[in-house]
């Protein structure tokens, strides 16, 4: 019997488990293959929902769904925590259940927030990258009637690279609707010389900043936050005062990855197209934990999961795997509270953002509502 273990029940892990259940249905029924999905809690959390929480347009509860309802019944779901990965012995250690042997392993553990890497950030800054942070920011924004709102992109890399732009566009319009915009200055800071990593997105967003009076500060890498004085200090030697700071926190991979020798800083070193780990045999990584040169975004995890499912199905059948991931990434980008655009790109193709429209905004909301169909492998 071939044993496939998947660690992590986010978008990548559940899409992969369901795709394998589909591709390898007969083998699973015969008991020739076993697919085990391990997640350290019973629920999947769909993080894109959190962008809407600070503006009172969504609740963190809407971002959660029991994984047992999302994965095919042919998949063995274990709610347990993996505490060690031994790629030589091909064995995982689960906190409650003990050893779990595998023939193929897929790591899909996602990224962690590590705000403490920047002194003062946890005390002085807000964010919308988890449920608690988004709710705290909602409460702070509700009471924020005047002053300097600073959104600083601090974490490099960070999940959903479009979200910081979306936040300032939504905040601008939301404050206008409340009649507070004249009393609030908005500044967006970004680590490099333009306001987004992708040049076409930066060129698309800059005129909207100019039109709406959103200030931008580039080459700005926060090194320390002084919560008492309400000042951000940067690696470049500059500083900025704030009244309300939204800091995209630093992210980290998993200690499991570093301890297993699979990559630096907790990200798994993989071939960009096959997604096979560079430092171990029969190990793949998908989603945020895989160190590939594109966004840490749900669409990436989704497409990577499809490629890895096809590769694993070939390998189980003794065929040479040929499926690969071409870097395909799709991101919706809200450009206000009632309009948006979207981009699609890959390793070899640049994005070309279209003018924002209300239709795309509704498309994003509709996708978020129907996201659980994606996790089930239906959409």
């Amino acid at each position, binding site marked *: 019997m071939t044993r496939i273990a998947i660690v992590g029940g986010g978008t990548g892990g559940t899409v992969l488990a369901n795709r394998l259940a589909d591709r390898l249905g007969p083998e699973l029924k015969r008991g020739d293959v076993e697919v085990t999905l391990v997640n350290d809690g019973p629920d999947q959390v769909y993080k894109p929902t959190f962008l809407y929480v600070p503006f009172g347009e969504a609740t963190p509860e809407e971002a959660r769904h029991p994984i047992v309802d999302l994965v095919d019944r042919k998949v063995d779901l274990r709610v347990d925590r993996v505490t060690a990965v031994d790629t030589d012995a091909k064995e995982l250690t689960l906190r409650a259940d003990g050893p779990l042997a595998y023939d193929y392993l897929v790591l899909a553990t996602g990224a962690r927030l590590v705000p403490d890497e920047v002194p003062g950030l946890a005390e002085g800054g807000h964010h919308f990258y988890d449920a608690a942070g988004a709710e705290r920011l909602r409460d702070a924004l509700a009471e924020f009637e005047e002053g300097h709102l600073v959104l600083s992109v601090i974490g490099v890399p960070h999940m959903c690279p479009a979200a910081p732009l979306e936040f300032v566009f939504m905040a601008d319009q939301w404050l206008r609707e409340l009649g507070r915009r004249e009393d609030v200055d908005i500044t967006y800071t970004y680590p*490099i010389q333009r306001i987004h990593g992708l040049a076409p997105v930066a060129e698309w967003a800059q005129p909207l900043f100019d039109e709406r009076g959103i200030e931008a500060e580039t080459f700005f890498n926060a090194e320390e936050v002084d919560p008492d004085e309400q000042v951000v200090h940067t690696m470049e030697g500059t500083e900025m005062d704030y009244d309300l700071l939204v800091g995209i926190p630093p992210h980290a991979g998993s200690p499991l990855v570093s301890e297993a020798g699979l990559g630096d800083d907790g990200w798994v070193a993989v071939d960009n197209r096959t997604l096979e780990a560079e430092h171990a045999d029969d190990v793949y990584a998908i989603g945020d934990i895989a160190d590939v040169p*594109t966004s840490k975004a749900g669409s990436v995890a989704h497409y990577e999961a499809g490629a890895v499912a096809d590769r694993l199905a070939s390998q189980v059948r003794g065929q040479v795997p040929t499926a690969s991931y071409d870097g395909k*990434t799709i991101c919706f980008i809200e450009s206000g509270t009632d309009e948006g655009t979207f981009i699609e790109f890959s390793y070899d193709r640049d994005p070309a953002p279209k003018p924002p429209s209300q239709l795309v905004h509704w498309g994003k909301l509709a996708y978020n509502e129907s996201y659980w169909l994606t996790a089930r492998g239906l959409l």
Partner: protein
Amino acid sequence: MSEAITPDVTVDARGAACPGPLMDLIGKIKTADPGTVVELKTTDSSSSTDVPEWIEKAGHDLLEIVEHDEEDYWSIYVEKTE
């Protein structure tokens, strides 16, 4: 010549789309110890101007830029200062 420089860490940003080679480099420099020599491999021709501009602003040392003609990428060597 590049053979003279042995990087402590290498950031392979060849083909990097989003957020791009300079962001990848900044992420690595942020967590590195002073004195660390980082090699950035990039296929993005704008890196040869973007990266030196940031290194100067942030006060790190640009050691060398090596063009690998046959493989069509650049290696940019940077040393993190205090």
